[in-house]
């Protein structure tokens, strides 16, 4: 592989831009990942202590959002770390999907109910959501998006 994919394999001097804080970009990405993990940690711990009805990662997301508003922008490194995590979001669902093995018997026993909820329920939800948004967009008289 000529060159491609070598970006993260080791120190490349031309790649080591110096960030404003005097840290290398790699170290800044590490900071961003730490920020994301700490937000989740604080979220999980707060949920454990207070018994709030929200899952920890959601509280962590709110914390990070509040931090972004306080700061008034997304630091480039945080944006990059988040984009990296979200770019292959569907990969992250694969281990949970393989869990179908464990629940095979239960699912076979109630297959009609589960299949209906999965297929019809999903189609109904897609349709209701899209039609509601379309109707309210039209009612409020504004364009849906920049590309019409």
């Amino acid at each position: 592989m000529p060159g491609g994919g070598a970006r993260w394999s080791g120190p490349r001097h031309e790649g080591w831009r110096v960030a404003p804080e005097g840290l290398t970009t790699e170290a800044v990405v590490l900071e961003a990942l730490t920020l994301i993990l700490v937000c989740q940690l604080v979220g999980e711990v707060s949920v454990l202590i207070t018994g709030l009805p929200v899952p920890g990662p959601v509280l962590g997301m709110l914390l990070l959002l509040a931090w972004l508003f306080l700061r008034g922008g997304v630091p480039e490194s945080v944006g990059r770390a988040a984009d990296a995590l979200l770019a292959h979001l569907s990969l992250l669902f694969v281990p949970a999907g393989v869990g179908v093995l464990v629940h095979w018997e239960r699912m076979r026993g109630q297959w009609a109910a589960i299949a209906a909820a999965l297929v019809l329920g999903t189609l109904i939800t897609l349709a209701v959501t899209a039609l509601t948004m379309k109707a309210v967009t039209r009612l409020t008289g504004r364009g849906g998006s920049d590309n019409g």
Partner: protein
Amino acid sequence: MADDPFTTLWVYLAASPLLWLSLTLVCYLIALRIYRLGGESPWFNPVAIAVALLIGLLLLTDTPYQTYFDGAQFVHFLLGPATVSLAIPLYRERHRLQRLALPIVAALLAAVLTAASSAIGLGALLGASTETLISLAPKSVTAPVAMGISEKLGGLPSLTAVLVVSTGIVGAVLGTGLFRLLGIRDDAIKGFALGATSHGIGTARAFQVSPVMGAFAGLAMALSALVTALLLPPLLARFMASGG
């Protein structure tokens, strides 16, 4: 020690998380390639293909899911940080969010209520057990959030995870076709509906269609995770208390 070198190797690999972690990534990459070879048709959903490949491997090697998950948990773990990261697309889209506040709030409430009630209604109608119904209720939100809700209410978090992934795949496969049938052309609306219904897998699909659709799907996924986490547990607890 062991009789032949192949058995020795297998015993060593089977005990290490490295094997199934690597195979999860390899199967996903193969699935992505199949998806591209299939002309990026939604029917070649990468998650569905990767899951099918891995199940085949597990059955062939007679490996229990727990052994698989010991390796794959490192990928699974990243769902949490990915959920936290949703703050970034949310923040980036804050102006559009303000501009479209009313349609978004209306669509969001419609999505959250329809997703849970259609799942419970259809499931109950066709005789699913209470445990299955609770596990079905949060199936439209991203896995860590849905699993948390299911666990709190007495469902089976691991079953919920499977149902979440299935819902994601169904929406990603059928969504664009349904929108065409309904005459919905606005990418913002299509993206929002896909993200609100089919969370991360729907969002991944939306990004493949257009960046606007992807941004709105990410936004919808984050908002519906939040609103479902806040609304569904108290609503469902009350519903179960009244309905038995």
